[in-house]
């Protein structure tokens, strides 16, 4: 009973201290850009009402989910294809490396040309930025599938979907998840950036509106909301990853114990 309590205390202590320091240091602040934390927290419930959550946070999250899902599917599918054939990989590698090296936010102006400034543009921007880490990590993962296992599967006559699902994708999945994790943070960046450029709703749009109107405490609450959203998505990702890769983490723990 004592251990978990102690761990909780350790986990909470520093955040509490930091918030207290922020509170105390900003209490008498008259700097317009650093309003007292008290003011920010008091503004929070006024700004982020249920209406605003529905009107601004929900559209942002839906666009992120759509773009991310497209990137995940396309990235894994293409990556499996490219990774499975040595020749294809050699042909595609320089082009893929170049496309990956383009900083994703610069795609916003280009994609605006094609897709206008609607939801479509944001989803395409998010998908086209997130797809590279997934794609290249899948290629790496598929390439590294144990050749002995591939031979074994062949001699047992395991082919087609079964081979893909139970052998190739499964042994590549730790790598694929590493790519998906990188893609998530890129996706959040692109969600915000695309809304800062051209939008009529969304978290990024709202925060910039506050900043332009010099509603500084409101802007701070927006930054807090983005922080919370980033944190929640990362926790969610960890939960999914832990479930899907449970076999892998178990295997690693076992080999570590035995060695």
């Amino acid at each position, binding site marked *: 009973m004592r251990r978990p309590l102690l*761990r909780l205390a350790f*986990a909470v202590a520093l955040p509490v201290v930091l918030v207290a320091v922020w509170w105390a240091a900003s209490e008498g602040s008259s700097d317009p850009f650093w309003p007292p934390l008290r003011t920010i927290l008091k503004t929070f419930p006024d700004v982020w009402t249920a209406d605003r959550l529905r009107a601004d946070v929900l559209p942002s999250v839906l666009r992120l989910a759509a773009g991310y899902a497209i990137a995940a599917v396309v990235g894994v599918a293409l990556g499996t294809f490219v990774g499975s054939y040595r020749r294809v990989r050699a*042909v595609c590698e320089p082009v893929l490396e*170049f496309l990956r*090296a383009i900083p994703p936010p610069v795609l916003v102006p280009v994609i605006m040309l094609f897709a206008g400034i609607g939801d479509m543009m944001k989803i395409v921007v998010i998908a086209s930025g997130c797809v590279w880490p997934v794609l290249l990590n899948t290629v790496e993962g598929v390439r590294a599938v144990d050749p002995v296992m591939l031979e074994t599967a062949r001699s047992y006559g395991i082919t087609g979907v079964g081979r893909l699902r139970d052998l190739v994708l499964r042994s590549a999945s730790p790598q694929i998840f590493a790519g998906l994790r990188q893609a998530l943070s890129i996706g959040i*960046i692109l969600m915000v950036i695309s809304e800062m450029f051209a939008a009529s709703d969304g978290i990024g749009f709202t925060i*910039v509106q506050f900043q332009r109107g010099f509603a500084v405490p409101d802007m701070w609450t927006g930054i807090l909301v983005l922080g919370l959203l*980033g*944190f929640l998505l990362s926790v969610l990702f960890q939960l999914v990853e832990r479930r899907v890769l449970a076999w892998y983490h178990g295997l690693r723990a076992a080999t570590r114990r035995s060695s």
Partner: protein
Amino acid sequence: MRGVNAALGAAGLAAFLALGEAVPRLSLVKEAYFPPSSRVASALAHEVSDGAFWSALGDTLVGWAIGLAIAVGAGVAAGVLIAIVPFLRETTASTIEFLRPIPSVALIPLAVLLYGTQLRSVLLLVVYASFWQVLIQTLYGVQDVDPVAEETARSYGLGTWARVRHVLWPTALPYVMTGVRLAAAVALILAITAELAIGAPGLGQRIAVAQASQAVPELYALIVVAGLLGLVVNVGARTVERRALAWHQSVRGEVAV
């Protein structure tokens, strides 16, 4: 084998460029939105002969380099300190887990208010984003130290500093270098993003101007430059990593095995 792969890669690149030339020429997409490769190339040549382009490139590189240097210095120092003091490790874990996923672009409005379009705006974003990459990798690296080696060093009477130098640092270095490589790429993304969104001088700002003035081939040319820059940063970071870890198994193993 290597030569064949390089040839195939070059063929892939050529095919990619040819496709970029043919698709708009055949009016499969609107040429106004997607100029053929040759027009992008001539816009690129035009950019390269422009002095303003080079000073923008210089601005971007300066923001990137200073930001990366601060992030690496702070990340390694904080990482080693946190990792070797158990009390700090336990108390900071939750805070790090909470702060790390906060998207750095959330700070854009704050940077605009505080510093406007100065270099400091760019640095704020770059340092925040790349600091975590280095810190987390350093923490992993220090935790990976073999307890037997650590105990051996202790029983031979090595002091704290000697143990950090000869036991901890060699173990952590591969992780730190991974962190630096990731941070280098992230720093470039954030430097160009900050210029694009805030208007601080640099490549990103030139991209924003090209977009606003509907100079589509120039827009593509600048994006190609941004991609090449990213490529140079990636290759450069890998080279530095390989040099710094030339003694390490993971690098030596490639040749020996």
